[in-house]
C-alpha cells in the first residue's frame, strides 16, 4: 500500500498509478542502428536492493508520467518528479 507524492496531485494511493519500468535506462537516439544498445535499453535491467528510480504513470489521476525513487528493500518512496524533468531522469535531486 504505497503512497506516491504526485507533484501535481499530492500524496495518492499507488492503486491510482501504473508501473512503467526502470527509469535509469537511457533510450538510444532515434536514428541509432546499434542493436546491442537497443537490446540493453529494452531488456537489460539492474535489480538493485535499495533506491531505484522508476517510471510511474498517474493513470487514474493527472495522467502525468513520473519518475519515482523507491527503495526496493523497504518500499519507502523517496521522491517523485515529472518524467520530463531531465534532472529527475539523470538522478539529481532538487
Amino acid at each position, binding site marked *: *500500500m504505497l503512497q506516491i507524492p504526485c507533484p501535481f496531485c499530492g500524496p495518492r494511493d499507488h492503486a491510482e498509478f501504473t508501473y512503467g519500468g526502470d*527509469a535509469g535506462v537511457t533510450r538510444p537516439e*532515434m536514428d541509432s542502428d546499434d*542493436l546491442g544498445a537497443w537490446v540493453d535499453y529494452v531488456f537489460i535491467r539492474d535489480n538493485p536492493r535499495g533506491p531505484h528510480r522508476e*517510471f510511474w504513470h498517474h493513470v487514474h489521476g493527472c495522467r502525468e508520467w513520473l519518475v519515482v525513487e523507491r527503495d526496493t528493500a523497504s518500499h519507502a518512496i523517496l521522491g517523485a518528479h515529472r*518524467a*520530463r524533468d531531465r534532472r529527475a531522469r539523470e538522478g539529481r535531486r532538487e
Partner: protein
Amino acid sequence: MTGFRLPTGGRIDRSRPIDFRFDGRTYSGFAGDTLASALMANGVRLVGRSFKYHRPRGIVGWGVEEPNALVTIGEGAAAVPNLQATMVDLVPGLVARSQNRWPSLGFDLMAATGLFARFLGAGFYYKTFMGPTRGAWMAYEPHIRRAAGLGKASRDPDPAEYEIVHEHTDVLVVGAGPAGMAAALAAADAGSDTLLVEQMAEPGGQLLASCAGSAEDTWRRAALDQAAAPNLRLLTRTTAIGLYDGNVVGLLERVGGTGALVRERLRIVRPGRVVLATGAIERPMLFADNDRPGVMLAGAVRHFVNHAAVAPGRRVLVATDNDSAYPLAFDLAAAGVEVVLADRRERPPDALVERAAAAGIDLRRAATPRAVSGRRGVRGIEIRGPDGTVHVACDTVACAGGWTPVVHLASHRGAKPVFDAALDAFVPGPPEDGIACIGAMMGVYDTAEAIAQGERAGLAAAGRAARRARSRLPAVSALAGGDVASPSGLPVLPAGADAATVFLDQQNDVTAKDVIQAQAEGYRSPEHTKRYTTLGMATDQGKTSNINALKVIAEARGETFGVMATTTFRPPYTPLTLGALAGRNVGRNKLPERLTPMHDWHLAKGARMIETGLWMRPWFYRWAGAEVGAAYVGEMMQVRERCGIADISTLGKIDVVGPDAAEFLNRVYVNGWKGLAVGRARYGLMLREDGIVFDDGTTSRLAEDRYFMTTTTANAGPVLNHLEFYLEAVWPELAVHVTSVSDQWAAMAVAGPRSRAVLRAAFADLDVSNAALPHMGVLEGAADGMPLRILRLSFSGERAYEVYTPAGFGLAIWERLIAAGAPFDLKPYGIEAMGGLRIEKGHVAGPELDGRTTLRDLGLERMGSTKKPYLGDVMARRPHLTDTRRPRLVGLDPIDPAKRPRGGAILFFEDEMIAGHGRGHVTSVTYSPTLGRHVALGLIEGGAEAHGRIAVASYPVKEEFALVRVVDPVFLDKEGKRLAD
C-alpha cells in the same frame, strides 16, 4: 462430569436466555456467551474430529488461538465453515454443526480403526506419491481428501453481503487489553483521532479473565467510561489481519449477527501512527494424549470461569511451570471446583504456596504431567514427581506452559522477531517507523507496567511528550503481575512420553514424533520442517504450536531454544472470507460496464449483446436470425450485397495536436506521415520497443497541426499510455499534446454497395461523391447543427464510411441514418459479422496482432518506412524476428467444405507427423456466404512460399482434423475495387 454453568458471576446476561442448535440438538445459553462457552455450559465437550486422524477434540482456548473447535455456522447457501466456536457470538437462532466426522461426531468410522495414523505421518504426500507410485495420487486423492479435511463450503452463491471501507486516522491502536486501552485513551486525550480495535466482542483483553468486581475489572470499567470521547472510536469484533507497506492495516470487522445486512467488513486503514498491543497467547503443555477433550489452556479456562461463568469440569488439574496459572487455581477453588495444582518447579514463590494452602488446593511441586487417560475426554492424568509417578483423577487439565507474544503484525513488514532468553520467547525486533509495540507482546506481563507503557506510547503516538499518568483512572499498582516465563532447563517434552501421541499442532494433527522425525530426515531449517510436517500451516497458523515445536526441535538436536529463528509470519493473522476481500466487487459490480450512446437502441432492436473488454457490443441482431451462426452470415450478405450499419463507438480515439504532431506520428507509426494531406486519412501500424506489432488504426489529418487517431477497441487505453510516455519521458522536446476523446465521439460504420446512397439521403447538405470524399478521404460538416466527421474507410472491403459525431448526438445520427437508409434496406450488423467480413478480406485483427507477430509475419513489411527511423525498427531486425521459418500470415481454404478448421487449431503440413508444436496455427475462421464455404486465416511457416500446399488443421482436444489449402489471405476482391468505387 464435564462443564457446567456457575450459579453466579460472569459478564453474561442471565436475563436473556438464547436457544441454539448444535448437531441437531437444541441447547440454551445466555446473551454474552460465545458458542464455545454455551456448549461448555451445556456439558458438551466433544466438538470436533481432528484433521487427519479423526481423533475426538474439545475446546482448548478462549479466542483466536483455538485450534480444535471449528464449526460450520448456518445452513444451505449461507453456511460458513471452519469458524472457531470461541469466536462465534451466541445469537438467537444460531445453527452450528461439527465438522470432519462420519457418520457422526460421537462415532467416527475413520477414527474407529486408528488406521490412518500409520500412513499420514510427516512427509506422507512426498513419500507415498513420488517416483513410480506417483500416478497412485490420482486414484487415492478423492479418498484422502474426504478423510482429511475441514468443513465444506456451500457451492451456492453466498447470500451475505460484504463491504470494503477505506479510512484514515491519526493513531490506530490494535488490541484493547490494558496496554492498548491506556494507549488509546492517552492518544485521544492528547487530541489525536484515535481508532482502537479489539478482536473479541468485549474490550479488556486479559482484564476479562478477572472476575467482576476485581481491581482489574474496576480499572477496565473506568477506562471504558472515558472511552466515550468523540475523537476515540472503539471497534470490537475487529481483527487486524495484516500490516502492510506505509503502515496500512487491514481490519476485518465481523458485523455478523442474524439479519445483519453486511456479514463482514474489511477496513483498510492508513493511520498516521500504529500502536500494537496484540498481547500474548498461552502455550500448551506437551504430554501424551494432550489433545483429549478437556485438556485446555489455563488462561482460557480463567476466561470461561470469570467472564462466561462456566466451569469446564468438577475436578480440574492445573498444570503449570510459572506463576500465571495460580490465579486460575484460586478462582476455581473459590467457585467450588476441586483443584489439583501441579507445578513443574521445585520452588514456587512462597506467597503463592501459602495462598494455595489457604484455599485448600492440593499443590504438587516438581510435578510433570506425562500422559492423559480417557479416550473421548480426560478421566485422569499421570504425573511424574519426586516420589514417582502417580495417577490423578480429573476431568479437566488446564495447562500453563508459558506465554508467546503475538509478534505477527509487528513482523508482517519483514522485521524479524528476536529471542529474549529471560522471557523464554521471541519478541518483535526494532519496529518500523511509525509503529510502537507495547504490553504483553513485548513481554510486559505486569498489568500496571503495561498500562503505564500504554499511556507513554499513546502520548508519543499523538506527538506529545510523556507526562504523568492520568489521574482520573484508578490506581493500578494493586494489579497482579508475577513471573510468567517458563524456566529454562525444564525440557518441554517430558521424558518417557510417547512422542507419537504428543500433539504439537492439533489442527493439522502434527505430533512431536513428526517433528523429531523431520530432523532425522535432514529437514534442519524450521521453514523446511514446517512444510514437510505441515506444522503451523492450518487455519490457526500455529498460534499454539510454533514455539513448542521449536523447543522440541532444539531438544531433539541438543541445541538451545532461541538459537533457531521462527518461521515467517504472513498476513492474514486470522482467516478471512474471500467475500470480505471482494467486498461489493462481485457479479455485475466486479467491473464497470461501458455502454455506447446507441446501447438502448440495440437492445430495443433485438441485438444480442456480448462483452468485449469492458464494453457491451451488439454481437448479432435478431432480424438476421435467432442464433449467431445463421445471423452473422445473413448480416455479412447484407453488407456485401446491400448495406449495413455497425456501432463502432468503442474504437479508441485520440486527438494528436501540436506543431510537432507529424514528427511524433512519424516516430510512433512504422509508416510515414509527413506526406499526408489535410483532409486525408491513413492506415497506421505501431510497434512495441521490442519490434513486435502493438496496434493498428487510422489517423486523419484535420489541420496542419491536428490529427484524429483511432485505435483498436482493446488497445484504446494502452495506446494512450504509450503515447503519453514517449511525449513525457522520452521526447519532451516535441510540442505535441494527446487527449483521449474515445468517450466524446460516437461512431458508426456504414458499409456496402448502397452506403453512399444512404449517406446522401441522410445528409443532403454534404457532398459525399467519390470526387469529394474518395477512399481514405475525410469530410467535416454538420447535420441540423449536429457536428459530423466522416472518414471514408473500409474494414469490410466494401465501400464504407465511418461517421463520427459527438456522443450526445450519437443516437440521433444513428436513427437518422437508419431512417434515411430504409429505402435502401439498411440493416444493423454486429461484431460477429464485422469479424467475418474482415477475415474474407484478409485484414488482421486481435487474433493476428497477438503480441507475438512482426510486420513481416503479417505480410505488412512493406508498410515499414525505410526513409525514417521509427519506434521498434531496429529491434524488429533481430535475427530471430527475421528468421524466414517464422510462421507468416496466409489464407486457409478447406478442402472438404463440411470440415471447417477451428480457431486455435495447430497446423501441420500434410506429409508430417501430427505431433509437437506444428508449423503454425489457425487464427480466425468465418463462413463466407459469398464463397459458400468456411475460410480461415492463419500463421504458417513459409507464408507466401507455402501457397498451394495442403496442411492439416489439428484440434486434438476435440479430435478434429481438417485439411486446408494454403492460399493468399485475401479471399475477395483482391484488387480492392469495391471500396474505391
